């Protein structure tokens, strides 16, 4: 078969363009984080002082802690609940399952700002104290559908008798889920948890509607500072740190995967 050279070179060009446009802000962020001056760009002055400055910015440190706490809790809870609900949805008959999934996918498609307002309205309606609990609930809310979406295909791949087999061998329903179903859909759960974590860490818009007073996660803190002054370079330093760590972890996992494949042949 003759290869379509024009087609593939266009693809390579567009792929390069994609990486450029997606990574350009990242490169700018990293560059700002290692440049000595926040005001002067006449000549480059390498520094790592902004990285030290992260811990001197108590507000930022607090916000990082809040972000991580929310992300970890929301991921754990939404993965547990999402898996349970996915098992429930999987046990439905086709027609009801589709109905359920349509409802499940509304928050996925719903623009964040509308989700934010909807949650804002309902939490307000219940006179809840805005802050940690509402932000946590909100993050669980938007992460749940994604967990369900990633667990469900794994459930579909399972032998339909697996659950019955466990019951048959003397397991209670709970034991059957914990000891048989969950280990078999682990991969989907991990994928769901990763998505939940990513979304929680990255979320700005929904958190923006959930915050109150001095309670901030990183996104809302930066946004609230934006209106008042220039964002100081330690924020960029923190962000660069996150990016570098993520890339490092991904490459590490990838190479681990490769060696594992090799060992198994």
């Amino acid at each position: 078969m003759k290869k379509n050279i024009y087609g593939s070179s266009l693809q390579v060009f567009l792929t390069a363009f994609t990486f450029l446009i997606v990574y350009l802000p990242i490169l700018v962020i990293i560059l700002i984080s290692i440049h000595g001056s926040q005001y002067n760009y006449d000549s480059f002055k390498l520094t790592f002082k902004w990285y030290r400055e992260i811990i001197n910015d108590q507000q930022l440190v607090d916000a990082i802690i809040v972000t991580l706490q929310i992300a970890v809790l929301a991921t754990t809870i939404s993965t547990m609940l999402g898996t349970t609900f996915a098992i429930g949805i999987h046990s439905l008959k086709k027609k009801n399952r589709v109905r359920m999934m349509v409802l499940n996918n509304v928050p996925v498609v719903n623009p964040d700002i509308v989700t934010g307002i909807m949650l804002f309205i309902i939490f307000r309606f219940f006179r809840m104290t805005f802050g940690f609990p509402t932000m946590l609930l909100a993050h669980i809310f938007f992460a749940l559908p994604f967990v369900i979406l990633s667990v469900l295909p794994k459930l579909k791949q399972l032998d339909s008798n697996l659950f019955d087999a466990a019951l048959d061998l003397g397991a209670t329903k709970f034991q059957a889920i914990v000891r048989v179903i969950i280990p078999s859909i682990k991969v989907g759960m991990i994928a769901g948890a990763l998505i939940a974590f990513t979304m929680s860490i990255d979320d700005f818009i929904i958190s923006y509607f959930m915050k109150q007073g001095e309670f901030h996660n990183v996104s809302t803190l930066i946004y609230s500072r934006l209106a008042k002054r220039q964002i100081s370079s330690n924020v960029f330093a923190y962000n660069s740190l996150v990016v570098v760590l993520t890339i490092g972890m991904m490459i590490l996992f990838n190479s681990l995967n490769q060696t594992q494949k090799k060992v198994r042949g």
Partner: protein
Amino acid sequence: MRKSLIISVLAVFVLFSLSLVGCSSKEKLYVLNWGKYMNPDLIDKFETENNVKVVYEEVGSNEEMEIKLKQGITDYDIMIPSEYMIDKLSQEDLLLPINYSLLTNLEEVDFFEDAKVLYENEDFGQYLIPYFFGTVGIMYNTSNPNVKTALESDNGGFCTLFDVNNDFRVALYDSPRDTIGAALMCLGYSVNSNNDAELGEAEDLIEAALAKSLGSIRFGQDDLKGDVAKGNLDLALVYSGDYFEMVFEYEAEETDIEFDYFAPNHTNIWIDAFVIPNTSKNTDLAHKFINFFLDLDNAAENADWVGYTPVISEVYNVMVNDYGYDYDHYYPQPEGSSREVFMYLGSEHAQKLNTILNAVRIS
């Protein structure tokens, strides 16, 4: 089956309703203030002295402050709005009168004349204790000498912001009161004008400026000062304190300062003041908080950190004499200038200004 579904819905409801219970045993004081407008060390000091927790929240505009108060998500104990907002809130019965007997430090201090005007106002003076004051003016970048020349020319001042014949990069304030106020002052009218013809002229002035082909014009908030300092903007409408804040930041980083502040002869004075909204659950503590900042040492430390002009004349003297501040540069009321204070002219007026700013922005 139906039944268990209904029970589930109820359970979620109950869960949500229960979760509103807060936890921390410490007494809390909820403060609503502007960004970088109170020395955090002093807040810490107040917290330790009284063994309380100060929940400090920052906003970007008076209107945002008003909405936050009215939303009732937080029951604020202390707010520091500007004069016209205090006027408005007091008209709407949202403020508690100050109990002067609880402010023991009040006797030790004297307010500046301008602050006194507010403090002694018949309508709402009883609700407030002044905090800082200053002017509205223009911050400009000195790297382009034409800007300074234009500002100081006869036809300069606020009019420079709206001049379609220069190629300056200009920024206006994303607040109807300030931007339209600047336009009114350029036209020689009062900032408190409620005259439709005058307001129409102001609207035309801003609209024409936004359509100018030379240079550029945009809207922003308190972050504009950074762009002027850096050179991304040639001039912007700012509050007087913004200039000093940038000076401190640049000095801390030992960067050359290429910006200055210009207060036109006819401008308005703003005064921010402590008020206790009627949502306050802890008025005693709120008074203690105000009293704390009336203490001369605390007030001086705070003024040094904030950079605005203190309303207490004793503190002003300390700043100029002991701390070496050059207040001449932007002293709000030099001889021979004409100064105005924003008044609250009713919600219709506010709505009118809002509509004007929205209209010019989409034209």
